[in-house]
Structures are given as C-alpha cells and as structure tokens.
C-alpha cells in the first residue's frame, strides 16, 4: 500500500472511518443486509396473507423449486438465453471491433452508430421491438424475411410463437447490448502493441496468423471479462420478458428473475421468491469463479 506507517494513528483512523462511513453504511444497509435476509427468508415459509405460522423450513423451498417443472423451465430458458446470446453477442462485438480497429475514414461514425442502442433504456427497446415483431405480412420483420426469402417466408406471430418468442427476445437483447462489448473489446485491441503486428508482418505472417498469434492472446483477458459480464447480464434477464411476452407463450420465455418476481409479488410467496434469487446469485458467483480460474490459468501459462 502507498500509505506511510507514521500516519497510522487513532485520529487518522477516525478521519478515514468518517470519510468512508456513509458509503459503507449504504452498502451494508442496502446490499449486505437484504442479501443476508434473502438467504434467511429462503429457509422459511413466509407467504403474505397465509394462515400458516412463520416457520423455519430448512431446505424445503429449494427442494420444492428443484422439483417444480415451471422453475426448471425458467432455469432452462435463462441458460438457453445465455448459451445463445453470449457467444453471438461477443462474436458480433469482436467482429465489429476488428472492423473498426483500422485506419479508415469515417470509422468513428460507425462506432457512434453501433454504440447508440446502449443509451436506449431496455424498456423502450422492448416496446419498439414489440412492433417490429408484429404478426401478419405487414409486420416489419415478417416482410423483411419475405423479401430475403423471395416470398417463401410465411408470416409468423413471433412473440406468441412457442419456438420463436425466446429467439425474438434474444435478438432484441443482442441489438441493445453489442455496442457496449464492442467498445470494451475495441479498447483491448488498441492496447495491443503495434510493433508486434509489424514484427509478425516482417516474419511473413498472414492476416489470420496475426490475429491468431498476436491479437487473440493479448485480447484474451478482455474477452474473458466481456463473456463474464454478458453471462451475468443474461441470467438477470427480466425487463424485455416482462414487457414483450409476460413469460409466455406457455412459459416459453419465463426466466429465473421473471419467475422470482411472479412468486414474490403476484403470488405473495416471499420465501419462494427469495430462494429463487439466492439461486440466481449462486449462478452469478459460479460464473465469476470460473472467470477467475480461466484468467489465472492464462497468467500461469504465459
């Protein structure tokens, strides 16, 4: 640490404590405490308006959740969403970043454009895309697909189609989120020393070889970070679902967070909702832990 040992005295400790106290108090009251409460509530049977007395039920909520098909469906949907959106969005962001990382005129315009959706609130994005997905031959996406397929596409009602509703939400999310990852990756690309590329060029490396052996190793930690953040955001999915499909049709788009809010607020099953959010947290924890491990392995290798 940068601090000087001679400054370590009680009055200085008090000052430092006072400076950090408001922020620390906020974190304790509004993050740590509710988190502990979520864990505790998950072990009870709390349900508002229930005639049953409040009881400590241990792992009963979790046992029920894991044997409940609608929650299993929601977990599966969240997993599916992450499995599709994370690679697609990261891949697209990487491709766009590579295209933008060149000295060409007008390149900044494109960066501005691709980043623009990031400043759009998700709820507005969801509302606009709900109309893009409008059913019938006059719907925007339907007629676009008809044009592309030279008329072979039969119009679908995307948001009410059991097979298409979740992919529709995925596409919407990718549109909104790609710009953010793209900018992060672009910064990573610009940190790759240009001498390395020049050296590789002198050694006669082609485009692909330079990408594979120079760019990618340097970009690895950035990509790991981007994948981590996108995965966590994917498991937190709620806004688009709540606005575009309400979890339907027949639970095809219900996610973990959507189920948790439904349980806690619509059915007043507080304990059940809390248990679901604890599971959500464990997923986030697992993803972060995996990222740390992969990043550390990388450091040991190089």
């Amino acid at each position, binding site marked *: 640490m940068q601090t000087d040992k001679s400054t*370590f005295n009680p009055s*200085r*400790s008090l*000052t*430092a*404590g006072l*400076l*950090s106290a408001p*922020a*620390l108090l*906020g*974190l304790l009251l*509004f*993050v740590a405490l*509710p988190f502990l*409460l*979520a864990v505790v509530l998950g072990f009870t049977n709390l349900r508002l308006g229930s005639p049953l007395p409040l009881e400590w039920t241990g792992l009963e909520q979790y046992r029920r959740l894991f044997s409940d098909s609608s929650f299993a469906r929601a977990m599966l949907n969240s997993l599916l969403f992450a499995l599709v959106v994370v690679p697609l969005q990261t891949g697209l962001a990487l491709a*766009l970043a590579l*295209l933008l990382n*060149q000295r*060409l005129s007008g390149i900044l315009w494109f960066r*501005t*454009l691709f*980043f*623009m*959706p*990031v*400043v*759009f*609130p998700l*709820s*507005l994005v969801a*509302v606009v*895309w*709900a*109309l*893009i997905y409008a059913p019938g031959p*006059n719907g*925007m996406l*339907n*007629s676009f697909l008809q044009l592309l397929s030279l008329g072979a596409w039969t119009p679908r009602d995307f948001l009410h189609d059991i097979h298409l509703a979740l992919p529709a939400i995925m596409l919407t999310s990718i*549109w909104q989120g790609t710009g953010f990852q793209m900018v*992060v*990756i*672009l*910064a*990573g690309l610009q940190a790759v020393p240009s001498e390395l590329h020049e050296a590789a*060029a002198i050694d006669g490396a082609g485009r692909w070889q330079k990408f594979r052996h120079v760019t990618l190793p340097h970009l690895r930690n950035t990509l790991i*970070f*981007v994948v981590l953040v996108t995965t966590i955001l994917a498991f937190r999915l709620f806004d688009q679902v709540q606005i575009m499909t309400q979890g339907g049709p027949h639970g095809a788009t219900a996610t973990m*967070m959507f189920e*948790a809010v439904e349980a*806690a*607020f619509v059915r007043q099953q507080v304990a059940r909702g*809390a248990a679901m*959010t604890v599971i*959500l*947290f464990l997923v986030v*924890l697992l993803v972060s832990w995996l990222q740390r491990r992969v*990043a550390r392995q990388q450091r040991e290798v190089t």
Partner: protein
Amino acid sequence: MMTRWARPLVYSTLLLFALLFISPIGFMLAGSMKPDALVLAEAGGWRAFWPTALSLDNYRDVFARVDFIRFLLNSLFINGMIVGVGLLLNSLAGYAFARMAWRGRDLLFGLVLAVMIIPLEAIAVPLFYMVSLLGWRDTYLVQILPFIANAFSIYLFYTFFIGLPREFEEAACIDGAGVLRTFFSIIVPNAKPVFATVAILTFLTQWGAYLWPLMVTSGESVRPLPLAIATFHSLPPLQWGDIFAFGVMMVLPVLAVFLLFQRWFVRSVAATGIKG
C-alpha cells in the same frame, strides 16, 4: 497493408451492420411523425423509415394523454441524485481506502469487493420488504437511497487514487491542509477522468432502471421514464405513433449528451474492461 479489395469489403460489411443497427431507431423516429394507420401500413417497406407524413400530432397527443414532463423531471431528479451524491460518497470512500492507513481498512475493503458481485436482482425481494416496512414505497427516496453507495464505483475510485503520486498529500501537509481540504482542492482536480467515468457508468446503468421502479411505485407521481413508457404502451387505446413520439422524447436528451461527450462515454465503457 490493406489489399485493394479489402477496403470496399470492410465498408460494405460495416454499412450492412449499420443499417441493421439503425433501422429500429429510424422506424421509431419516422413513425413518431405519422398517423397511426400509416405506421402500421408502412411497416413492411422502406417507407417505414421515412417520415411520409411529417406531423407533430403524436407529440401533442403524448402531452395530452400523460404528464410526460413529470416523468422526465422524475427521471432527471432521481438519476441526478444517484450520480451526484454517489460521486461524493463513493469517491471519499475510495480515497480513504487508497490513501490512508487505518485500522480495519483491509477487512472493510474486502467487504466492498465481496458485495460488488451481488446484483440488484438477487436482493430485490427482501429489499422491497425492508422499504415497505419503512413506508418508503412511492417515494423518490426509495429510488435513490439504495443506489447511492456503489461498490464498483468505490473500486474504480480506489484504483485511480492509488496511482496518484504521494507528493500531492505531502505538499498539502506542508500547507497544513486537513484531509477534506486536501481531497477537494488537490485530489479532485487531478482526478477528473475517474469522476467522469463513474458518472457516466452510473448514469448508463441507472437511467434505464425498470425492475425496481416497477416494484416500488404504483402511482404516477414519482414514476420514472422507463416505467412510464411501458405503462404508456399498455394504456388503451394502443397508438403506436404516440408511443414512438414518447420514445423519441425520452431518448433524445440522453442521445444529445452522448453525442456531445462521446469520447468520454467510450472511455468510460472501455474502463470497465481494463481490470481483467
């Protein structure tokens, strides 16, 4: 280094993606100026992106149907408070952690790093019952207070402050300045980039907040824009032109700020990835 055919290929790929990225925005902008029947009738062709009617009736309708200004002011107030007070408190905490030696520092900083991983979604249910017990529902306070202290902001301030040279405090010490004066007159002027980064990131993550306002507000008086557009969308009669006009108005101020300070936005977002 680029071969002859590479340049047109790069441009045409970029252009293709640019069209895909901008079309929803163009659809919204053009549709906001058309009567409803035209929005729907023209959605299937290039006219969807062209203001074929050019009227501001939809905008007038929005003001007639809902209190748009109120929602806008609510959002500005809530986010202004979260960003403003957050900058102050989180930077002070980051400063105490980075540049002062004190008992319990390492333990408490460990706590900050630990809670950084907890997403709002994981605590929303019990937090809702806490604020309900306190009678805070349907207030500005409940939308501001829980989001002021931010572990990631503290962490960003910490990493910036720890890199500043020691001479800053030494010079201040000779002048006999106290901790607060040192912070405000020497540290803050030399830390503008990190303040801008934290302000922009906080704003980007909070401006679109939907889940929490949905849980804690029921009336219109303290409702922010992201929730207001969703309820406007479900408010009969369904008028797409009006909804698009609402959308344009809610995104325009942010878009203007973004275009003006674009370099800072990009720098801030890039900063999130550097910790890797």
